[in-house]
């Protein structure tokens, strides 16, 4: 807790214009992201086929290879194979707006801890 103030504020670097974390949570539930990922704030499911996304906002890389930036994250959650060829995560049935909302949720949910 004491060191929390020393971290770079995620709110600044990870601000998403016109994205809504609340809508993002609904989109996560609708698309079933939890089938593979343990996502903060999603009670069920907590799938284990993919990596846990707890604390994702503090993580440096997306899938260990892409810088964790809002634009890249939004592109990745919607169409991972095109954003990062060879990645495991498949393309998901999401609109660009939903993908931005989901990125906003992932940042907001890890910042809230």
């Amino acid at each position, binding site marked *: 807790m004491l060191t929390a103030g020393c971290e770079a504020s995620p709110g600044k670097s990870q601000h998403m214009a016109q994205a809504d974390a609340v809508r993002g949570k609904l989109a996560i539930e*609708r698309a079933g992201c939890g*089938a*593979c990922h343990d996502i903060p704030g999603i009670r069920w499911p907590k799938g284990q086929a993919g990596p846990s996304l707890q604390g994702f906002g503090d993580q440096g890389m997306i899938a260990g290879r892409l810088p964790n930036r809002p634009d890249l994250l939004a592109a990745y959650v919607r169409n991972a194979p095109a954003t990062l060829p060879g990645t495991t995560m498949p393309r998901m049935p999401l609109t660009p707006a939903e993908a931005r909302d989901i990125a906003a949720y992932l940042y907001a949910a890890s910042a809230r801890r």
Partner: protein
Amino acid sequence: MSGDSLIPVLTPAGPYAGSITMLAWLLIAMATAVLAIVIAALWIAFAGSDRLKSRLGGSRTIWIGGIGVPVVILTVLLVYGLSLTRNLTAPVPAETMRVRITGEMWWWRVAYLDETGQAFMIDANELHIPAGRPVLLELESNDVIHSFWVPQLSGKLDMVPGRRNTMPIQADAPGVFSGQCAEYCGGPHALMGFVVIAHEPADFDRMMTERRASRTPVLGTGAELFQRTGCAACHRIAGTKANGTAGPDLTHVGTRRSLGAGILPNNRGTLMGWIGDSQAIKPGNRMPPYKMLSAAELEAIASYLEAQR
């Protein structure tokens, strides 16, 4: 779909659920009235005037309020309730579509029956029906007691091993209606969901014709992996060598709205997650995790399953 979404139980979408919902509201209203009377009586007992207490305290109140009024009300309610829900037990027309749904731990086997009672099409966890027509369900169980419940279409009826219970359902208009196993059946009972999709009758007939047409098997890596990794030992895909019947039939899995028995949306990602480690999603279900498969293999199997339509 998600763990947080609730199935609407008081918004009927057909005649059978309609009469049950009507009766439910009547009972709720009457229970509210009884509660109000009891509260008023308590208030009189503690804070009422002596005159009121002595007027109500005699045996006459017991005879009227305790015996006379309940006998009249309950008799009227019984007669009204039985006539209101008469449609639930009324015989359905002989040409009514019949479907046998068998409860399994923790999913549903669905068999569409022809005029002779023989299954002509097998599916799982989802039921397609024509809107505006009754459909008679034959409810059975292969293991423990389950209970079939799609609140917007009909009542709740147990599926008892060794018995065949029948229940009619009907949706007045096209739509998607969620259901849930309503009798605790062990482990992941809470994750034993069901989906009914009601179509316009013409669309329904077209869909059934398409499904009954001969199928061209899908070939490729996914098909080969499906055989080689053991999927086919438990799952059947009509027209292929996959003939297992321990798990849900996957002949039409690509058209399903949901996975894991009505609990997850059906897309490439959820398919891969389910195949890779369904135990993390639905702990205790009878499909083992397939953590030895690579991402490419998972994706190949998922895309093979998406093609099963």
